[in-house]
């Protein structure tokens, strides 16, 4: 029992310590423009309306981008995994494309698609696509040869290798990719909102800079963090059963 409780004590202790340090640093002005934790909590309590409405915008954009980007990432990876000729044909382009820092695309997307949803959602789609695609392709490449050999020595055809060995073997990898994408979708949305939005947490934080509303800015950071954590947990909880066979312990 002691061993079970021990980590939670440490976790709670570190949180208390962090908030304590924050209190000291803000009360004695060790860091300029640092509001106290109470100031930030007050934003949530006293003006929840705007914060909530901006969070909702970020939430919807992030979710739509996450859904389409992830679906596309998995599908394209499965298509590539099917056949080495397909891979040989497309892979150089993809390798080149994935080296592009995604954030550099924001201004270009704004130019191409305009301000607001029209550029933010496609940007999040592209960001999530590459995360899920790269992790899924790696999962396919990492399926041990011995599984494929074992299946063929039991009479599996080429198609059966794919449907009965590769596909089940990569499920934990794909879910790992979805979790990374889920945690990244909202930060990506936020980055796009810094430049090209009139709503959303990114806009809310940038507006805070202009008006020097520091507690609001930090509340915005807390909001986007909560979205990312919630999305990651949602994927983890809904897919837990699919990966229960896996040796890998995923926190």
């Amino acid at each position: 029992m002691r061993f079970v409780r021990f980590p939670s004590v440490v976790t709670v202790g570190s949180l208390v310590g962090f908030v304590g340090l924050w209190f000291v640093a803000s009360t004695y002005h060790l860091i300029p423009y640092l509001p106290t934790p109470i100031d930030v909590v007050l934003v949530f309590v006293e003006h929840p309306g705007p914060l909530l409405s901006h969070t909702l915008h970020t939430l919807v954009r992030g979710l739509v981008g996450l859904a389409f980007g992830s679906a596309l990432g998995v599908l394209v990876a499965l298509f590539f995994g099917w056949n080495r000729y397909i891979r040989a044909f497309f892979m150089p382009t993809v390798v080149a494309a994935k080296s592009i820092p995604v954030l550099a695309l924001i201004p270009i997307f704004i130019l191409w698609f305009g301000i607001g949803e029209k550029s933010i959602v496609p940007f999040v789609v592209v960001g999530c696509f590459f995360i899920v695609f790269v992790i899924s392709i790696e999962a396919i490449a990492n399926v041990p040869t011995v599984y494929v050999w074992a299946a063929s020595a039991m009479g599996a055809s080429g198609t059966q290798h794919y449907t009965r060995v590769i596909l089940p073997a990569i499920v934990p990898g794909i879910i790992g990719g979805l979790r990374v994408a889920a945690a990244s979708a909202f930060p990506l949305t936020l980055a796009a909102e810094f430049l090209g939005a009139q709503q959303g947490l990114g806009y809310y934080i940038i507006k805070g800079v202009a008006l020097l509303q520091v507690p609001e800015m930090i509340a915005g950071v807390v909001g986007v963090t909560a979205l990312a954590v919630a999305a990651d947990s949602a994927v983890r909880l809904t897919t837990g059963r699919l990966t229960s066979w896996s040796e890998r312990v995923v926190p």
Partner: protein
Amino acid sequence: MSQQQRVKIELSHVSHFFEKDGAPFQVLHDISEQILENEFISIVGPSGCGKSTLLYIVAGFIAPTEGRVLHNSVEVQGPSAQRGVVFQTDAVFPWLTVYKNIEFGLELKRIPKSERDSIVRRFISLVELDGSENLYPKQLSGGMKKRVDVARTFALDPDVLLLDESFGSLDAQTKENLQLELLKLWERDKKTALFVTHDIEEAIFLADRVFVMKRGPGEFTHKAVVPFPRPRSRELKMTAEFQALRHELSAELARA
């Protein structure tokens, strides 16, 4: 070896090269050999001598650079369910339960559900895994996983059995138990078997004939007939005759 026994596996001038640092590196050199029906052959050799490569060539996973392998006088062109393989590493599918792992190949063979079920249950009890049907491999010990691997290979009733250092990763006690279980399964229908190992004691205990392989490049340097009657028990390993053969092969292996 009676005269009526027909040739099951024939290796004909098999040579194999890997690419190593951009240059061809010879792993196997001109191996020709006949393995008869119902024979149990062990191949011993130092690590890196190419014995596993040879087994993979017989299985059809790798095409030999030169020469060919005949199975029932037909050239091996690729893997087949007629040649069952028990691997050195963990090849049991981790996403399937014990039951589903053993059922896997039977399903591919389109054996009807009820018949499949009786085969799976029979082999589960033959390898003493009763009660573990619904466990996943991560819940099993190394020895239990090997049992699943052996059971799923035998359940498919292949014509030839290929075992690649299958018990190499197990502790001595588990290894001996599995050797006995393998022999018990093998005695039932005496399939032609090719067992690759670096353990001389294991090689002798299981086989009718032991081939010693040298490395750089791999070829057979010595062949010994194992004269001990079957069925064999673990006491055989303690006899003077067994130890004498073991010493003889150790000397051959040291020279290899």
